[in-house]
């Protein structure tokens, strides 16, 4: 019989007390209430570990970097043992042919019973030649690994939306996972990177309940992506009061006023930064005095400056925001109306002159 999570944790020297504490913390971070802690503990004691294949396409590894910094649970002690992370080319010991053989083994051995986690996305131009893994285009590895997967986790904005490598004009045609794999359930965990605890909580939920948490219409877990940063921002009272940072290092910036005018994307970004925060709950960008750049939103990289409240519209073929387009239109129409009125007045005067 395969090892359960509990077996692995005990083998790693984790006491039962610590294990139960982790279960309580996980239940709390999932918003499940204390009665679910025993359920999580029971699942971890009895369920064989679900193998996870963690593939890397076009990406910067910031998702992995975030993931390994999970504080609740601590990734070192718990997560890498908890997950049967059978393949992750960034952090695995083996390399080359031996490593690639594991992918084939998992896909064939655990048909329909493994989770495929994807970090990054496949570029499709030139038959996928812009991203080669083990001598083959990544898109082929992705399609192969997805063929028998139970479900797919799209880590980060790359896998979820496309992210920076998909920015205009997207020369490699980097394409988010859900547009390449269309026949598997996919959960998106966007962010550049996603919050560490969000990542571990999502994977814990999937392994515990063997199903996805409730998703919104775009495939994101509602428990972390149902509210905007703005809705739970600790600077929100300054927004409602009309107290804004007008320029960096002004009095408002020192007093911690709202960063709305500095282009903070908190009002349009669905993520858990203002509640879960980062680095073990120490801080998050707005708390550090910088606006949110909206890194978990689709297309955030193509909306013009991170420091502009009104972002650019591309549909007009020029880089301009709504006010520039609108004021130009009003100017043109206003001038046309004025000119038309002048011509009308002249015509009336001339007609009156003709009649007299």
């Amino acid at each position, binding site marked *: 019989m395969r090892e359960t999570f509990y077996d692995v944790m005990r083998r790693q020297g984790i006491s039962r007390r610590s294990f139960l504490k982790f279960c309580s913390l996980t239940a709390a971070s999932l918003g499940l209430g204390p009665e679910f802690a025993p359920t999580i503990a029971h699942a971890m004691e009895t369920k064989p570990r679900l193998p996870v294949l963690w593939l890397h396409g076009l990406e910067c590894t910031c998702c992995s970097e975030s993931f390994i910094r999970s504080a609740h649970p601590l990734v070192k002690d718990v997560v890498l043992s908890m997950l049967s992370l059978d393949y992750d080319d960034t952090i695995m010991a083996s390399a080359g042919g031996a490593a690639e053989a594991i992918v084939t083994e998992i896909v064939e051995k655990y048909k329909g019973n493994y989770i495929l986690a994807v970090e990054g996305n496949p570029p499709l131009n030139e038959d996928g030649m812009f991203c080669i893994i083990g001598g083959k285009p990544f898109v082929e590895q992705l399609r192969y690994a997805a063929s028998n997967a139970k479900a797919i986790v799209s880590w980060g904005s790359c896998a979820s939306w496309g992210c920076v490598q998909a920015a205009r004009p997207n020369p490699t045609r980097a394409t988010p996972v859900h547009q390449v794999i269309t026949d598997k359930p996919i959960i998106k965990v966007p962010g550049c990177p996603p919050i560490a605890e969000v990542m571990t909580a999502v994977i814990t939920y999937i392994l515990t309940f063997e199903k996805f948490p409730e998703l919104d219409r775009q495939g994101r877990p509602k428990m972390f992506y149902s509210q905007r940063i703005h809705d739970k921002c600790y600077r929100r009272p300054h927004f*409602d009061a009309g107290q804004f940072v007008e320029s960096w290092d002004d009095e408002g910036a020192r007093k911690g006023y709202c960063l709305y005018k500095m282009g903070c994307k908190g009002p349009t970004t669905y993520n858990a930064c203002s509640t879960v925060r980062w680095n073990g709950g120490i801080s998050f960008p707005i708390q550090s005095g910088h606006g949110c750049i909206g890194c978990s939103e689709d297309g*955030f990289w193509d909306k013009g400056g991170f420091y502009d409240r009104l972002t650019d519209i591309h549909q007009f073929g020029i880089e301009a925001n709504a*006010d520039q387009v609108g004021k130009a239109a009003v100017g043109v129409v206003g001038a046309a109306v004025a000119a038309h009125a002048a011509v009308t007045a002249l015509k*009336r005067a001339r007609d009156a002159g003709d009649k007299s």
Partner: protein
Amino acid sequence: MTDTPLTDTPLTDTTAHPNRGQAIKGATNLGPAYHGRLGSRFDAVYVYEAPVRIWHWINAFAILVLGVSGYFIASPLPSLSGEASDHYLMGYIRFAHFAAAYVMILGFLFRIYWAVVGNRHARQIFTPPLLSMKWWGGILYSIRWYFFMEPEARKYVGHNPLATFGMHFGFVWVTIFMIVTGLALYGEGAGMASWQYRFFSSWVIPLFGQSQDVHTWHHVGLWAMVVFIIIHIYAAIREDIMSRQSMISSVTSGWRTFKDDRPLDEDH
């Protein structure tokens, strides 16, 4: 428009001005047989019923509030100092925006209801006859008139074809766009359990890509409305002076009067 038998007394009664009692009866059921009978200086046609007029001015006020407050939501006033608990400026601006928005939405729904139950002029801006070549010809004529290429305007009881076109696409659809995107943005703050989120945010935001795009296009909609208002007011004033029927007094009193005795070009 069907032929109506000529059974009433002639509408043009040159002894009374305005001959309102008879004009009301005729104006709601005009056929081509009346051409040449209505449209003299002594006629008055009841075009804009009281609910339409009241809606027009309430809606105009709501849009004014929405435009100003909306602009200041996107580009807030200079920062206030002191403690957050001392002020609630953005809160009041947003309240004004949301309150005016609901006034506009309910007014618009009422206006659609009135298009169904009101007189035929109440339907005009909602149902442009897009398949009528005559109507498109009328648009062309109106454009030529505005480019000083025709000596005089045609005579209509309701909107001229170009005005109908502008009202339908520049006002009705812009309003619908603003209501849909506006409720989608409102639903974001109201939360996923709200009806605004369920019926609007849940599909509008993915349709546009993300929340910021919806904000941007809602903001473009503000400018579209400003452009409409400029043209609307200018055209109303100019037509009041230059055309052959009354304009500004009509949207106050509801009655359309005419400046010459020649027949109508179109009884709608």
